[in-house]
């Protein structure tokens, strides 16, 4: 120890030009984590927040107590949704690059979180997602063309042209409206869950945010309220290692996993291999059952990797090694589920390629259709008068006047 105090500045294990190094990750073999009963006391299962729940091993077989033993058909469904998510993201990214939408954010490498959790939750459960939950929107039934209409801010846009691309919502599917402000949805999920308990219903809430966003005060408010009222909520931390240019160490991930954030409040935490479809599904089902039966909140940390740039405005080659994802020890969630299904004799490379082709056609057709409802440059266009709607339940007088002025200026 030194005789003076010392300022610690976190450093990522690799910067551009360095060899990627994920030795900091603290992995555990598939099947090694125990699966407690859903009524386990938080203090008896604290180790789950330090461990890593994994089901799929290096030979692509399912191992251990957390194996959810899903039917191959169900796994195929999961794989397909993940593939659709990837194909959709790829196409929309391209579309932004061609200047046809203003902005885009993809979820490449994190598809298992959205799809496995989407499948483990019930339709009546309310979701408060982040912008990197594309798959959740798709799985819960948002049509491809509706997602595209939103990105185009066109005449069929669910947000009526008011939001940046990807800030979707889907009321019927219980998907809350996305905010641009990080972490704000977390306390909402807790409040929604409290209301469910107040009303005596068995619906639960789930929310998602990134490793970086755990630094926001709203994250901590959510955990405190969830703990105090034992709200039936699943609080997901998607640790994709990066928050734009800052690695997870800047959110305090260097000494304790994010899954342990609730331990001091008595909230159980599960650290799960976020690229292992089976593990994510299983951990979610455990937390959901627990919440539904009065067991209160669970924090789930999904260890994954942001496979793409932060957004179309970002250039990650400026701050991380170009090939870092290829060295990520937990791989790619799609490849891993695919290899598992192939190893079990329920899938083939040919089928995989066929599905991708099928989805490219499907996404291409949706894009064609979406453009009919208007693009940034070609009509039909939304009526600008609509920008004065929905500010209040009923439009007040001063806005009626401003709307009139705007229309006169436009004509």
């Amino acid at each position, binding site marked *: 120890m030194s005789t003076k105090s010392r*300022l610690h*500045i976190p450093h990522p294990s690799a*910067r551009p030009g360095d060899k990627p190094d994920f030795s900091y990750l603290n992995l555990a073999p598939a099947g090694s984590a125990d699966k407690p009963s859903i009524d386990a006391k938080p203090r008896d299962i604290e180790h789950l927040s330090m461990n890593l729940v994994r089901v799929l091993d290096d030979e692509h077989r399912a191992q251990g107590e957390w194996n959810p033993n899903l039917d191959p058909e169900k796994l195929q469904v999961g794989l397909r949704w993940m593939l659709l998510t990837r194909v959709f993201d790829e196409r929309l990214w391209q579309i932004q690059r061609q200047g046809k939408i*203003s*902005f885009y954010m993809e979820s490449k490498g994190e598809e298992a979180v959205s799809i496995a959790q989407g499948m483990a939750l019930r339709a009546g459960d309310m979701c408060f997602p982040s912008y990197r939950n594309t798959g959740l929107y798709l799985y819960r039934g948002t049509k491809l063309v509706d997602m595209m209409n939103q990105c185009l*801010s066109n005449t069929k*846009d669910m*947000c*009526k*042209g*008011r*939001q*940046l691309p990807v*800030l979707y919502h889907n009321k019927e599917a219980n998907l809350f409206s996305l*905010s*641009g*402000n*990080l972490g704000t949805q977390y306390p909402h999920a807790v409040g929604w869950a409290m209301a469910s308990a107040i009303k005596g219903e068995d619906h639960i809430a789930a929310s998602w945010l990134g490793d*970086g*966003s755990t*630094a*926001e*005060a*709203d994250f901590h408010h959510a955990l405190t309220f969830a703990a105090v009222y034992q709200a039936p909520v699943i609080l997901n931390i998607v640790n994709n290692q990066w*928050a*734009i*240019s*800052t690695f997870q160490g*800047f*959110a*305090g991930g260097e000494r304790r996993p994010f899954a342990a954030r609730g331990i001091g409040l008595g909230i159980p935490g599960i650290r799960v291999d976020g690229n292992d479809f089976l593990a994510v599904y299983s951990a979610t089902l455990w937390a959901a059952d627990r919440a539904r039966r009065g067991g209160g909140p669970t924090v789930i940390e999904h260890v994954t990797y942001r496979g793409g740039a932060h957004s179309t*405005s970002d250039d990650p080659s*400026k*701050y991380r090694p170009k090939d870092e994802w290829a060295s990520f020890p937990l791989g790619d969630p799609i490849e891993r589920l695919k290899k598992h299904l192939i190893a079990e004799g329920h899938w083939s490379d040919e089928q995989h390629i066929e599905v991708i082709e099928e989805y490219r056609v499907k996404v291409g057709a949706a894009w064609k259709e979406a453009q009919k409802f208007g693009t940034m440059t070609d009509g039909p*266009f*939304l009526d*600008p008068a609509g*920008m*004065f709607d929905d*500010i209040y339940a009923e439009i007040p007088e*001063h*806005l009626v006047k*401003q709307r009139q002025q*705007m229309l006169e*200026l*436009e004509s």
Partner: protein
Amino acid sequence: MAQMNMIEAIRSALDIVMEKDPNVVIMGEDVGYFGGVFRCTDGLQRKYGEHRVIDAPIAEGGIIGATIGMGLNGLRPVAEIQFADYIYPGFDQVVSELARIRYRSAGEFFSPVTIRTPCGGGIRGGQTHSQSPEAIFTHISGIRVVMPSNPYDAKGLLISAIESDDPVVFFEPKRIYNGPFDGDPEKPAVSWASHPKGEVPRGYYTVPLGSADVVEEGSELTIITYGTLVHVAQAAAALVGVNAEIIDVRSLSPLDTTTLTESVKKTGRCLIAHEATRFSGFGAELVATVQEECFFHLEAPIERVAGWDTPYPHAFEWQYFPGQKRLAAGIRKVMEAQ
């Protein structure tokens, strides 16, 4: 002298004060290794080290609160909030702490924090990358509020802000980071290279806080504005063909009342314009000030042009933005009034 855009001018200001005063530190999201999402701190961490250009956790309340603490312990911190739209988690630290520490400790404690933050729209940023929340901050006594409209002022004002012992919220209109913008999105973008205010001394200089700038002298009408709209106002006055005196407020609080009121007393007519929403906007304060000081010189009611009282809609950015047409209509209304 050098040609600089606003980003380079801001970076140059930071560089110069850091060189001059080892107590100046920068903290914000992505400001260190990466150099900021708008590149304003590019290269500064390499030059001054990780203890002076500090990447922060994503917590605006934490950034503002911690920089206040650093300031209390002798440092002179510059906090960057990535977008003004994301400053709200730090609001309590600004209102209840930063603004009042000097007052409540009878002058014994103070923290000279400067908060830099990009504001304004016109970049297709939607409602969470386009806001102009300056009036929320001008309402707080104890905080200085600044918004430059060009590279020369940006550098000179930022140096003054950092050197000031008062806390300053320094708004940077991001639409004009790379070039002046006259409000017409159809026109090709222009750079600062051909603009006189893009010519910036390489070395140290200051533009004083609390002083407005007469951008164009004129006799028929005074246009009081700031930020991006300074350039729109110039274009709109030319469009109407009126001999307008255009004033860039630049320091919103405390306000240089003298420059504004002398001009209005001379011209007898006044238009006030800003990009922020109208209701309880900073324009309301300007109207009140001009009315109080110049009532008997006014030949027409003071006119206000501002953003509509709506969030900034992604699809209708240009219908929202108070462009040349809207300012021109305002100018005509003031000129026609008897």
